[in-house]
């Protein structure tokens, strides 16, 4: 398992692995928002938590289609399915690698992008907390979507259509926590709900992802 994790991480970090692309996309979204809604500081501060959450979600989504597709193309996935390691563990590791290479950098970079959008001072803690709690759920749910579409040619758009509705609860609670934090309100309720969603999906989604992967590769 650790070998698989290290392999995935190494592949991502080395040239052509696409590490940092999500981060760059996140930066571009953050840059484009003031162009589209105007540079007014108050307005930007108001929408900053939501925009940052949405940007993080889209950056996660963009990197999903290479999560399993590359392994599918070169046949690694077939080997992994027949390996002694349970497939549930394989998809969990895949999700973890995705989170380390996409979700974690987003969490760490979010405060800096918050400065660009004039996020209120009180909002930084809750923003990082909610992203740190919520992005693992995005990776795990995304792995399910990637597993669903792995055998489909040009499945990228379909993947977005399938995964985005599944992201709704995570986005609602995550952005709500960040928004409440930015306006100085208590964030514990949405954070608890977000944690519930994250741990629930981490516990259950690998089974669905593995089942779907077996069906798709049969």
């Amino acid at each position, binding site marked *: 398992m650790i070998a698989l994790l290290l392999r995935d991480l190494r592949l991502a970090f080395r040239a052509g692995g696409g590490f940092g692309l999500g981060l760059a996309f996140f930066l571009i979204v953050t840059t484009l928002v003031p162009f589209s809604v105007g540079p007014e500081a108050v307005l930007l501060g108001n929408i900053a938590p939501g925009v940052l959450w949405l940007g993080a979600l889209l950056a996660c989504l963009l990197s999903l289609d290479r999560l399993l597709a590359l392994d599918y193309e070169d046949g690694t996935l077939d080997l992994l399915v027949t390996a002694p390691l349970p497939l549930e563990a394989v998809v969990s590791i895949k999700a973890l690698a995705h989170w380390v290479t996409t979700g974690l950098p987003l969490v760490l970079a979010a405060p800096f992008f918050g400065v660009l959008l004039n996020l209120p001072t009180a909002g930084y803690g809750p923003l990082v907390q909610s992203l740190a709690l919520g992005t693992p759920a995005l990776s795990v749910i995304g792995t399910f979507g990637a597993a*669903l579409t792995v055998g*489909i040619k040009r499945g990228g758009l379909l993947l977005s259509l*399938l995964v985005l509705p*599944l992201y*709704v*609860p995570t986005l609602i609670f995550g952005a709500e926590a960040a928004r409440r934090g930015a306006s100085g309100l208590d964030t514990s309720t949405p954070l608890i709900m977000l944690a519930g969603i994250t741990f629930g999906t981490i516990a259950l989604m690998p089974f669905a992802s593995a089942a*779907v992967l077996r069906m*798709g590769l049969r």
Partner: protein
Amino acid sequence: MSIWSYANPVKFLALSTKVQPFLWAAAAMCVVVGLLWGFFGTPDDFRQGSTVKIIYLHVPSALMAINAWFMMLVTSLIWLVRRHHVSALAAKAAAPVGLVMTLIALITGAIWGQPMWGTWWAWDPRLTSFLILFLFYLGYIALWEAVEDPDTAADLTSVLCLVGSVFAVLSRYAVQFWNQGLHQGTSVPVATGGRTVSDVFFYPLALCMVGFGLLFLALVLYRTGTEIRLRRTKALRVRAERSA
């Protein structure tokens, strides 16, 4: 004779073609009588005027939009557990019907909301959950279209339906947490038996609800029959090519 004997496509087709004329007739009668009664036979509401009459389209279609997904959930489970092709095809056949029902509910709601709430659309929990349900239907249908092998497609969409159901329920509660509503509560709570609409409006509404249910059933049977025949022609064509 158990219900599982109708997992045999031939038996299913025989029964469904026998039942369908009656279903269509009953559905047409209920919907036509219910709508006419509702539109012309009931008085205008004291406050809402004649706009209230859109309820005869809105409530039954919303009801069937949810029940169609529920039916897909049950048939998907049957396909995953017992691998009856008819069951998977019934789920496939029900999805576009459910999609259209959701669309009707959304559009009639918007038409009613414009004069009554002063807005076509509000980010109200009920409205938002229906929009999300609409997206789930779209994704489900798109996945059916995208996968070439029919059995794999049935497998994948079944799991998507199960997972989607969980997330649809989750979204429903998340959305309620996120924004307070503008939409009124249900007028016909089945669980408690109490009603907030007067009998004058309730009887045609109930007739419309029954009619939409029957219409849904007839449509699904018809579409399932089409899917079965489509698959059969495909098999025959493959066989003909092989022998030629």
